[in-house]
């Protein structure tokens, strides 16, 4: 499973969707040495200064996680809010650590800063090809390698259910089901939930913390008024 690559949608639907993630080269053959966790903690702490939508530690989760209540009154309690501090505090093992941005200037400024840090850890941008290219340009770095996503790029503009697939594929592990996305779309249309509540409900299923609630809210606003 590869969790960030195959998000469904045309390039323009990633206008508010940048995932910048770091990971160590784990295989022995790679011969990478040094304290990857320390570098990744620094990566994530710096990311927190650039107003990310979410930070995600693939091992422990993202800013919004499922909750567990031990009292029946939990049923009527308030839902949890995104908590980035918890992600920063919970990092215990090097792995895939991601920061999700919804503004181009924040993503680009972060990439530029992380280049200056020279952490030595691999960094990737998952977004539209153009978004990543522009971020590299601003930072003054040539792209090293690229993995094209093929299979979802022929998105018919009027495909029924297109928006449900766009929402669902924001968790590349498939944890946000298409049926749940459709239910949340209906809830927003019926005004039973706000786009924010609906986006946050879906986000709790994404165990790597890379679900972009800003993009989800925008898609749900479109759904509400029938924009395809």
């Amino acid at each position, binding site marked *: 499973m590869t969790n960030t690559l195959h998000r469904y949608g045309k390039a323009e639907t990633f206008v508010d969707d940048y995932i910048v993630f770091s990971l160590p080269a784990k295989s022995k053959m790679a011969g990478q040495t040094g304290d990857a966790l320390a570098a990744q903690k620094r990566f994530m702490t710096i990311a927190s200064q650039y107003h990310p939508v979410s930070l995600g530690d693939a091992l422990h989760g993202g800013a919004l996680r499922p909750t567990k209540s031990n009292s*029946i009154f939990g049923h009527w309690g308030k839902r949890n809010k*995104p908590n980035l501090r918890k992600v920063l505090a919970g990092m215990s093992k090097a792995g895939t650590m991601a920061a999700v941005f919804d503004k181009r200037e924040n993503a680009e400024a972060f990439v530029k800063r992380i280049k200056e840090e020279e952490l*030595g850890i*691999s960094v*990737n941008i998952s977004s539209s090809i153009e978004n990543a290219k522009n971020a*590299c340009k601003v930072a003054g770095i040539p792209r090293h390698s690229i993995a094209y996503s093929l*299979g979802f790029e022929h998105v018919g503009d009027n495909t029924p259910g297109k928006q449900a697939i766009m929402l669902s594929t924001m968790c590349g592990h498939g944890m*946000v089901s298409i*049926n749940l996305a459709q239910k949340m779309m209906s809830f927003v249309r019926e005004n039973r939930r706000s786009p924010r509540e609906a986006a946050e409900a879906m986000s709790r299923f994404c165990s790597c913390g890379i679900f972009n609630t800003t993009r989800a809210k925008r898609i749900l606003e479109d759904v509400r008024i029938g924009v395809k």
Partner: protein
Amino acid sequence: MRINPKKCVACGNCTYVCPMGAIYIDPLLQRATINRDECVECYACYNGLSKEVLPPATVRFVRRTLANFRVRFEPEPDVCPTTAFEPDKLEWPRVVRRAFSDPRVPHESTGVSGRGTEEVKTNDVTDRVGIGEVGFTIELGRPGIGARFRDFQEMSRALAAVGVSFEKNNPITTLMTNVETGDIREDILNEKVMSAIIEIKVPVERCEEIIRIVWDVEKRIPTQVVMGVGVRCDEDGEEKIVLPILEKLGYDPQRAKTNIGLGRKVIRDLTNAAPVEAFKELENA
């Protein structure tokens, strides 16, 4: 996965949450029930639903009463109000479902070895895909369809037939009985997973041939295929070799994972580095 019928109050929330659509409310039992053949043991229900502890008997009584007034019991959509999900102890071969479907499962616990490569994500350190090469990740099962190992075998056999070799450390490769033919263990062929990836690397000249094989196999299998096509950029950060091939084949790539080349063999020693502060207002960001 199983649902404890003593706890379930048939609110229906989980029927939407299951990525495989494998949960339904059994009309006779009046409880949520899992179609075990379709369930891929992804644990989205168990891990993803928030857990509450409403008393089941009371909730059932209240639900029945409210229903008379056409009022609906409606817990938050991402909650199981009675914590009714209980994971099974999975035996071989069923355990392979979880190994490929639950992103949090500790791989070692499943008896399936290999994690796959880091593709081009760490190419700046590993040099796994060099100039003139293409690394393919051929993934079956997205989005929300699932795939059985017999579908993977269809693909791996077709690729093996043209002499392609599979990545050694990839979990599907480790489940092959013969990497020369692409045969996969017989006892798991019917097992269904959320999605999984076959990984290969070929010289750039074979890129079109491989894509055509994938297209051909996709027509024969009851799931969908997505591909990641990993390549090394040139010194200026441009990629002018593989993209034209993809475009010639009718693709119009929109999205990619871009390795920006900051990885090094030695990670920076941060012992004496100036500390960085997290942004103050981190909650409710």
